[in-house]
C-alpha cells in the first residue's frame, strides 16, 4: 500500500486539535505545555509532508521545520523555568491556583 500525503495531513490535523483541546482542558501547567508541543509538532509534520510530496525540488519546508524545532525548544525551556518559579512561590503548578490576578 502506498502512503500518500493525505495520511500525514490527517495525522497532523488530529494532533493540532488534540493540542487545542488539551490546552483548554488540562489542569496541570506541564500538561498544558505538552499540548502546545503537540500543536508545534503537527506544524512540523505539515511542513515536511508538503515539501516532500508537493514541492520535491526545494528545501524551504525542511529548513522551516528545523528552525521551528529549535525555537520551540527555547520556548519550552523558558516556560519550564517560569513554571519552576511558580512552583517555588505557591508550591504547586495547578492552573486553578493562578487566580490572584483577575477582575
Amino acid at each position, binding site marked *: 500500500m502506498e502512503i500518500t500525503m493525505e495520511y500525514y495531513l490527517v495525522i497532523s490535523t488530529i494532533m*493540532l486539535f488534540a*493540542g487545542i483541546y488539551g*490546552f483548554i482542558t488540562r489542569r496541570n*501547567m506541564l500538561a*498544558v*505545555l505538552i499540548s*502546545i508541543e503537540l*500543536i*508545534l509538532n*503537527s*506544524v512540523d509534520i*505539515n*511542513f515536511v509532508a*508538503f*515539501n516532500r510530496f*508537493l*514541492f520535491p525540488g*526545494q528545501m*524551504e*519546508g525542511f*529548513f*522551516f521545520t528545523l*528552525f*521551528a524545532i529549535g*525555537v520551540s525548544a*527555547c*520556548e519550552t525551556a*523558558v*516556560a519550564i*523555568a*517560569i*513554571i519552576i*518559579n*511558580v512552583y*517555588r*512561590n*505557591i508550591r504547586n503548578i495547578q492552573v486553578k491556583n*493562578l487566580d*490572584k*490576578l*483577575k*477582575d
Partner: protein
Amino acid sequence: MGYSNFLFLKEELSLIAVMVILLVYDIFGSKKSLNYFHPVACVLFLAHTLLNLFPSEASEAFGGMIINTPMGDIVKTILNVGTLIVLLQARNWLHSEAVLIRRGEFYFILFSTLLGMYFMISSGNFLMFFIGLEMASIPTAVLAAYDKYKHDTAEAGAKYILSAAFASGLSLYGISLIYGTTGTLYFADLPAHIDGSTLQIMAFAFFAVGLFFKISLVPFHLWTADVYQGAPTTVTAYLSVISKGAGAFVLMTILYKVFGNLIDEWRTICYALIVLTITVANLFAIRQQNLKRFLAYSSISQAGYILLGVISGNELGMTSLVYYILVYMISNLAIFGVIGIIEHRTGKITINDYNGLYKTNPRLSFVMMLALFSLAGIPPFAGFFSKFFIFAAAAQEGFYVLVLIACLNTIISLYYYLLVVKAMFINKNDTPIETVHSDAYTRISLVACTIGVIALGLISAIYEQLGTFSFGI
C-alpha cells in the same frame, strides 16, 4: 552574495554591538565601575538611536530574506525612542534591593526583544518573520516574570508564556498551510500565488491569530489585563507600547504586501475585530480600580483604533498608523512614568489612592493629566490629531459606520480617562500620597514625554514627513 549584505543590517548590527558591550561590561566590570552601568547603557543606546535616526534607502539583502523600507526604518527609530524612555524610567526599579543583583540581564533581554522586533519589521520571508516574532515574545515572558520572588509576577509570566506559545503555534499552522498552497515563503513571490481559495483563507485566519494576540485585540485579549497588572511596571510600559506598536506595523505590512488579494476577507475580519475591541475594552475599563489594569484595557481599546489605519489599506492609512503609534507611545509612557515612580515610592496603585494627588504632587499630576487628555483625544494635544488622521483614513475608504462607532467610543473613553483626572484634582482625601521626589532620569523622561505630547500635534512637519515614505496596496 558576499558579506557586503551585512551592510544592510545597519540597525541590527549597531544594536548587537550595544548588547555585546554591555554584556562584557556587566561580566568583567569591577564592583565600583558597575555603579555607572545604567548611565553607560542609556548613553550607548542614545548613540545607537542617533546613529539610525534617519531612514536609509529601500534595499533587499540575503536574497530577499531582509527587505528594508524607509517606513520600516522610521518605525525602528520610533521604537528606539520609546525603549530609551522606558530605560530611563527603569532606573528606580532596577536599583531596588530585590532586582539589583541580576540587573545586568535586564538590558540584554530587553534589547534582544527589540532586536526581534527589528527582524520582524524588515522580514521578507515567513521564516524570518517567525524567528523575529519568537525572538520578540519569548524574552518578553522572561521580563514579565523578572521579580521572581513575587507571586504576581510569576503568575503573569506563566500566563504570558503559555498563551504566547499557543498563539504562535496556531500562527505557525497557518504559515504551513500557506506554504502548502503556494510553495513559497517569500513575501515578494507570494501575492502571485494567493488566489483566495478556501484553504488559503483558513490559512490566513490561523496565521493572523499570532499577530492579533500580540497587539491584543478582543477575542485574543484575555492575557492582557492579568499580565499588565502582574508584571513590573517598567515591563508593562514596554509591553503596552513597544511590542504593540511593532506588532501593529508588521500586521499592516504583511496584510499589504502578502495578502493584498484577500483584501475583502481581511477587511471583514478587521471590521468585526475593531468594533468588538473598542467597545468591549472601553466597557471593561470603566470598572477597573487598579491603574495598571485600567491602562491595560485602555491600551486594548487603543489597539482597536490603531487597526482603523490597517483597514483603510491606503497610503494615508499607513501614515496615520505610524503617527498614531508614535503619539500613543509618548502619551502612554508619560502615564507609566508617573505611576511607576509613585508605585515605587509608596506602593499605591489604585485610582482611589490618587485622590487629592494635586495637593501634594502638582507637577506629576499635571503631566499625567496632559497625557490622559492626549489619550482621550482632546485638542490641542497630539492625541486629537492622531485620532483625527486615523478616522480620516478609514472614512476615505467609505467606512462611515465604523468611524461613527469609533467616535461614539471616544466619548466613553473620555469618561473613564476623566475619572482619573477628577480623582487627582477634585476629589478630597484626608491622607493623600505624600510628596514624591523623582530622580533625574525619571524627570528627563517625563519632560521629554510632556514636550512630545504637546509638540507632536502642533508641528505638522512630522506628519507630512511620515507621509512621504508611506505606501498603500
